[in-house]
């Protein structure tokens, strides 16, 4: 039993190491995207994808969310949903005629 438990814990150390390597790969990808000259919309979309991949990995593995009940997992999506609502209410204001309100001093 003790041996089995020891094995379990060394598995989790290995998993955290692998997760760390994957997070570094995703960070390098995001950094590469930052230096490429893509259209801003596409760049924003790709950066959102790498960022969401990173936070899903951190939340699922480092924060043990994959072992939690579904209702707690759903609860953690609340900020994302509310942020999307806030963004979709404010973003249209930046389009159209009312741009360039801020002046360079």
């Amino acid at each position, binding site marked *: 039993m003790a041996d089995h438990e020891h094995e379990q814990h060394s598995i989790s150390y290995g998993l*955290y190491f692998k997760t760390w390597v994957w997070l570094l790969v995703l960070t390098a990808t995001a950094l590469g995207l930052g230096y490429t000259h893509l259209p801003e919309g596409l760049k*924003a979309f790709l*950066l959102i994808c790498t960022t969401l991949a990173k936070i899903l990995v951190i*939340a699922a593995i*480092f924060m043990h969310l994959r072992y*939690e009940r579904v209702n707690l997992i759903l609860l953690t999506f609340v*900020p994302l949903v509310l942020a999307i609502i806030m963004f979709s209410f404010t973003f249209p204001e930046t389009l159209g005629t009312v741009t360039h309100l801020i002046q360079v001093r």
Partner: protein
Amino acid sequence: MDSSLAVEQQRILASNWGGGKSPFGTSWSKFMMWIFIISDALTFAAFLIAYGFMRRISPAWPRQTEVFNMTLITLMTFILISSSAVMAMAVAAARAANPKLAFKFLCLTILGGLMFLGCQAFEWSHLIEEGARLTHNPWGVPQFAATFFVITGFHGFHVFSGVTILAIVALRAAMGKYSADQVENAGLYWHFVDVVWVFVFAFYYLL
């Protein structure tokens, strides 16, 4: 007593919310930490959306690569991700009832946090020397430096709080007054600080 009221009371007590049960399957402290993280995430979401708004309505936004030392920022990201991985190992060691190993991992996490804060202090003092203020800056619209100081400052304060919490947990682990739940809750907060930095790194420095 009114019989319908008694029936209603029985129904509530028998439900998952009647007390004595844990509908989320966690300890109360872990659940409170999650609630705190969710509310704190909303604060940062508001900051980042406000930043995006101001950037969109500015005539021009300075190129980050010309203002910031991207090598330093990448190093800071590397430090924070690494400390998060070490923190996860500290929680595993605490769950395995190995306080000595947990203490070592916690010290490494604290070291990562302190290195991050050192890099940030260096970055801030450098930018302030170049003339960046909340109200104006040499590179463009005043909102450029204002959003920078507010967002990274708020995040940096979270890192500082995290280091303080981890120091308390590490001391308690060293004293033997240690509980795996405590280490896990401190870990949840530390990973959240890492998650916020992932957003700031992508949207403030890279986009």
